[in-house]
């Protein structure tokens, strides 16, 4: 297993020549030597190799470039990228530990590449999905036509803990409920992308997308340039103009702020980053006061009226008078100001209804109902535990299924069948029986793997790891998907869990023009 730069096979060195994407007649690549010595292929979709072991044309240049970089140089670039992350303080907090431990976000040097054609389909699919989900929220919180017509059962909606009765009959600006979405996609064995879940409440991670790109550009400038990658750097501007377009009527020069729970939140770095990039004030609950249903922030020059709040605080904590009374993160009276139409919250209250994991099973029906179109991006097959037949099926096949609590995110509260013990399965069975509405089951998905640079500077090798994709969708006066997203990697070999709290990392995502 030892290999150094000197031992790189000559063939590999020669082949780096002047490759451009797609210029080479493909032949199965020899995986036994060099950086690829630990690479393996099986039935899972590999982002870099096709089923015959040939390099996909859009990965050819990347593979050649990396193969031609000597080990020491690769280690040096990796090291300088690490330093760059550390000095910028790009960290996240792991909960469950005492005090919350700050960690550097693990980061992989090999970008994930998506072709223009693949992306165009993803983009159309996401726009379709978000448009439909937004219409669904507007409908459920007003007329409830879809419930009346029986396309979504009422009990699923009314039993959802994120359904907010307080939102009934409220007109939100431009009828936009979900200004910011991060939708998690997986690529299955057949190469098609499916939607795993929609994050419609306070999705995070976009700062990693933006900072990864900056680091990658610095580490591999020439490769980046010759690929023709679609830019993502305008994300903060698009977000800002989306927020501005959602300002209450009669406020032509709206004051926009980002509301953070504070320094101890896991995504605090992201909050400071986005506030700085957009040039808006980063506020905490204690900075805001409400008077006569108008929101103000306390500044040294007096009270300043606030028109739009990009809030990164959950519904439950945002107003101790309207929701959880023990919250110290929120602002007393904010919900009333919101109902009075004096301030816009992005996202709106109660959007969590539409990313409930049980309601998820109905999203294809929702798309057909409102848009009269077939879904472009399919769902993952989902068994509802409230349905006796589906529940029995799930109980008989727990060892092959993934069970998820509908209200949890971040990889917490899950049972992964194939990796679980009999005791864990029994425990989940009991939990499901006690509260069937709280769980769903899905088949264990064999989703795609992407090449990653493994080895801590010592004996680096390129190995495949499972990845997902979280693009970000912004909804203001129109729906925009910034071309790219956060590719999360399950860095442990064989692992299917990509969450940063559970040993996942990220890598840059290159969406090509062509």
């Amino acid at each position: 297993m030892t290999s150094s730069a000197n031992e790189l096979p000559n063939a590999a060195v020669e082949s780096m020549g002047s490759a451009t994407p797609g210029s080479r007649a493909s032949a199965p690549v020899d995986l036994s030597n060099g950086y690829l010595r630990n690479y393996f292929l099986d039935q899972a979709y590999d982002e870099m190799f096709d089923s015959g072991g040939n390099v996909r044309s859009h990965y050819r240049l990347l593979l050649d470039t990396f193969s031609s970089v000597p080990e020491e140089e690769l280690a040096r670039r990796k090291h300088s990228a690490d330093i760059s992350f550390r000095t910028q303080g790009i960290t996240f907090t792991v909960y469950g530990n005492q005090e919350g431990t700050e960690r550097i976000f693990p980061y992989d040097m090999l970008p994930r590449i998506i072709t223009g054609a693949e992306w165009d389909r993803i983009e159309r699919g996401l726009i379709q999905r978000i448009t439909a989900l937004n219409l669904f929220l507007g409908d459920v919180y007003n007329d409830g036509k879809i419930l009346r017509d029986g396309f979504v059962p009422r009990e699923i909606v009314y039993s959802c803990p994120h359904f907010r009765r307080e939102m009934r009959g409220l007109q939100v600006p431009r009828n936009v409920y979900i200004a910011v979405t991060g939708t998690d996609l997986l690529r299955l064995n057949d190469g098609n992308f499916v939607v795993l879940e929609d994050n419609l409440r306070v999705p995070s991670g976009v700062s990693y997308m933006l900072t990864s790109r900056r680091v990658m550009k610095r580490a591999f400038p020439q490769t980046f340039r010759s690929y023709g990658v679609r830019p993502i750097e305008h994300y903060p501007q698009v977000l800002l103009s989306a927020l501005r377009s959602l300002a209450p009527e009669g406020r032509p020069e709206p004051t926009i702020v980002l509301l953070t729970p504070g320094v101890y939140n896991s995504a605090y770095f992201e909050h400071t980053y986005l506030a700085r990039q957009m040039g808006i004030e980063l506020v905490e609950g204690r900075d805001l006061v409400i008077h006569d249903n108008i929101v103000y922030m306390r500044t040294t020059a007096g009270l300043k009226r606030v028109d739009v709040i990009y809030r990164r605080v959950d519904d439950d904590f945002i107003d101790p008078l309207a929701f959880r009374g023990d919250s110290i993160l929120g602002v007393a009276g904010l919900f009333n100001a919101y109902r009075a139409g004096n301030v816009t919250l992005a996202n709106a209250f109660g959007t969590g209804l539409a990313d409930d994991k049980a309601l998820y099973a109905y999203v294809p029906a929702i798309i057909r109902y409102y848009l009269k179109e077939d879904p472009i991006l399919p769902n993952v097959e989902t068994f509802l535990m409230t349905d006796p037949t589906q529940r029995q099926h799930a109980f008989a096949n727990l060892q092959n299924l993934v069970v998820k609590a509908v209200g949890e995110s971040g990889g917490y509260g899950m049972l992964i069948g194939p990796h679980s013990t009999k005791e864990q399965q029994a425990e989940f069975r009991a939990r499901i029986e006690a509260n069937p509405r709280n769980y769903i089951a899905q088949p264990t998905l064999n989703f795609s793997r992407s090449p990653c640079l493994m080895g801590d500077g010592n004996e680096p090798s390129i190995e495949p790891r499972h990845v997902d994709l979280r693009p970000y969708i912004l909804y203001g006066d129109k729906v925009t998907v910034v071309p790219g997203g956060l590719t999360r990697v399950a860095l442990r070999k064989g692992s299917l869990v990509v969450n940063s709290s559970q040993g996942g990392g990220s890598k840059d995502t290159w969406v090509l023009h062509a």
Partner: protein
Amino acid sequence: MLSRVADSLYWMSRYLERAEHTVRMLEVNFSMTLDPSSTSEEGRWKRVLAALGNPEGLEWTGDFYALAHALAFERDSRASITGCIAAARENARQVREEITSDQWQQLNRMYHRVTDEVPQKGDRLDEFPAATLNELHLFQGATDTSMSHGEGWHFIQIGRAIERATAIATLIGVFEWDASESISEGAGSQQFLEWIGLLRCCTAFESYCNLYTADLTQPQILQFLLLNKEFPHSVRYSIDQLRWALMALQEGSGRLVAEELSRVAGRLQASLNFCEISEVMAQGVRPYVHNISQQCRHIHSLIYRDYIHYKVHVALSQ
């Protein structure tokens, strides 16, 4: 600027100034304890504690190594050097996006250096003060060169000026002043060393000598520490800085609410600008410096009333 941000910057700055003052007090008195002296160990360290405002949790127990160690490393005390630096960093962390990366990295580096490894009692007291002073200076440099000299910077200046003026005034107040008494430098007079010590605690000895030569007299020392207009650790200089920063602040925020604040600060500045040292000595140094400390406290509370904790209905009615 958000009031909360101004509050954090102000206290970050005060804590760092307090750390710097405590470093000098520790360094000077630690080395003076090693010399034979007319002042007893107990008298000296009790005076140090009094000059630091008799902070809670720090007491003279008869062991000056223990006290020096606590002054340097007692993390839980807001009067120790380490405690002050930790408090400053905590404030900076809350406004991470308002200060520059240069400032943050320097403060972070300093924090990790003083908290990473707490030595045994008595150890590292020789190099700790000098190294910490150096780090504090680096932070000041980063602040002055990398941060915009706008509102946030003014709050930093205000915090430092109030803290420094109060600290120097309190330190002056713990000494016995008598204009008729001369300071003899004879070998028998260890009192001479005490006055040098006072000047060194204010980093003033060299500057004093430049102005007055090494001829030490009580009126000149008092004049220098209290009323010198060019020396950055004199009370007058600090108050001049404070007043200047307050005016810049008022101009920037475009509000006229701080009327009382400008009056009080202006009066204090005028009293220091037009004061005779002989009068101060005749009327008593202690009441004079005590009054300065009180004025500073008053200014602090007016700043908070007008800029930070103002009442909502008051702000709305303007």
